């Protein structure tokens, strides 16, 4: 996380070797991204999804889009069909194999780009603001898919501006001016309202309300990020007196 221009995307591009460091090294499972002989191996391990799906989708149908990466990996076509079905299921686009890609909505396109990366079975997936162009429904779907991936053992590196989304992670890294300014457990980091304010992040309204109440001297926890938990916290306060 971090403001526009702080180097998030630049860092992400170092992870799969699109960019190589000017100085220092990036190792993926012990493989240095600087060494040309490692390129193929690294690209296989790490999948990347960009912010704007339109800049990633190149073929004319959904099925071809997913097959593109597989063809490059020389997967036999019988297996390919099986994989395509499988990943389309994962991103809830089942039955849309023959749909032209230009007929998809923004959310569907974003899920297709995730599917075509998943088809290559990467060990780690890097997502650069995958939800910033989507409506709330599409956003929730994509986040759900990412969560499921993680449960199944894929590492996820997610770039986002949303505090809510980052709360689902185990570790959050905050960047500014090309440097890491802070990192750790998101619930710890984002329960400090002063920290959020000084770094110009959007405070979830739940935290904002609890913070305002706390300032008046009432005892409430700031770690309630969901609406329900925040309401419970206030109800608990009201019940104190009975």
């Amino acid at each position: 996380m971090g403001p526009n221009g702080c180097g998030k995307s630049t860092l992400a591009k170092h992870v799969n070797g699109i960019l190589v460091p000017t100085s220092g090294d990036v190792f993926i499972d012990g493989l240095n991204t600087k060494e040309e002989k490692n390129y193929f191996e690294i690209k296989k391990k790490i999948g990347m999804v960009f912010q704007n799906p339109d800049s990633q989708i190149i073929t004319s149908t959904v099925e071809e889009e997913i097959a593109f990466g597989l063809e490059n990996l020389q997967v036999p076509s019988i297996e390919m069909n099986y994989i395509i079905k499988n990943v389309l299921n994962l991103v809830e686009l089942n039955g849309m194999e023959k749909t032209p890609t230009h007929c998809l909505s923004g959310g569907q396109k974003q899920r297709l780009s995730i599917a075509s990366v998943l088809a290559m079975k990467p060990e780690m997936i890097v997502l650069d603001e995958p939800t910033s162009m989507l409506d709330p429904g599409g956003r929730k779907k994509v986040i759900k898919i990412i969560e499921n991936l993680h449960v199944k053992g894929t590492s996820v590196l997610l770039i986002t501006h949303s505090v809510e989304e980052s709360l689902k992670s185990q570790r959050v890294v905050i960047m500014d001016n090309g440097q890491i300014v802070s990192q750790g457990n998101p619930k710890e980091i984002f329960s400090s309202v002063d920290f959020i304010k000084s770094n110009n992040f959007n405070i979830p309204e739940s935290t904002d309300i609890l913070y305002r109440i706390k300032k008046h001297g009432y005892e409430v926890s700031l770690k309630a990020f969901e609406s329900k938990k925040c309401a419970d916290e206030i109800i608990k306060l009201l019940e104190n007196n009975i």
Partner: protein
Amino acid sequence: MIRVEDLCYNYNAKSKSSISALKNINFTLKNSTIMGIIGKTGSGKSTLAQLLCGLLSPTHGKIFLNEKEIIKDFKNTKEICFNVTMAFQYPENQLFEKTVYDEIAFGPRNKGISESKIKDIVFEVIKFTNISENMLKCSPIFLSGGEKRKCAIASVMALKSKVLILDEPTAGLDCKSKSQLMNSIFEYHRKEKNILIIISHNMEETARICDKVLVLDEGIQLMFDSPVKVFKNYQKLEKLNLDVPQTSQIMRYINNEYPINTDIMFPKEAEEEILKILNSKGVER
């Protein structure tokens, strides 16, 4: 004033594969109103925007700008283009002039305004959007993402149109740039007293600045009302997979246990309301 009467739009209207994108839209906007359009992807938001600025012509129904029909024939297209302007989503992809100055001056030049007046306009709009004067000589290509966005918005502001349509003006910006840009758009609106139409997926933003909210679903006008009244229908909105501002959600949860005002949409008002109840109950600090 904008009046939309029984507006319908079908893509490929004359062929068999005709797709109906908008059905019977009706609304009236008085001068200097801000309207938000919400709806999921594919609900017809952008189609409506394109109809309003005359890029598409209605299959059925009429749109009036100050009692004059938009696109009656194509003779007055140019007039519409200057009266109703639009910034598309990710407008920074459309920057093409050599310098930021020329980029902003492009619209007014096409309008036939004299260079000296254009200079005044450019300096006026860069003040609204916080673009520094040294930046005017730069090529827009070398600006950062946030600066490019500001430049693109400034260039539509420079047209000084009666109606300004913005398609997700803050998508993809960080929170500071987001609130800065929103504030500058609001300031501009206050001065120009134009009609502002904002398409947004951010419900908190919509609740905060809009006077009216239009909810679209699959081309149908579901609601057209003030934000308070629209977001009261949270069940309808949640069915559409749209969010409501988080504060109003929290107030509703509290209301399940303790009666509280559920019309509240902003943290500051919520603070006052909760404090009032805490005080009346005499809860210890």
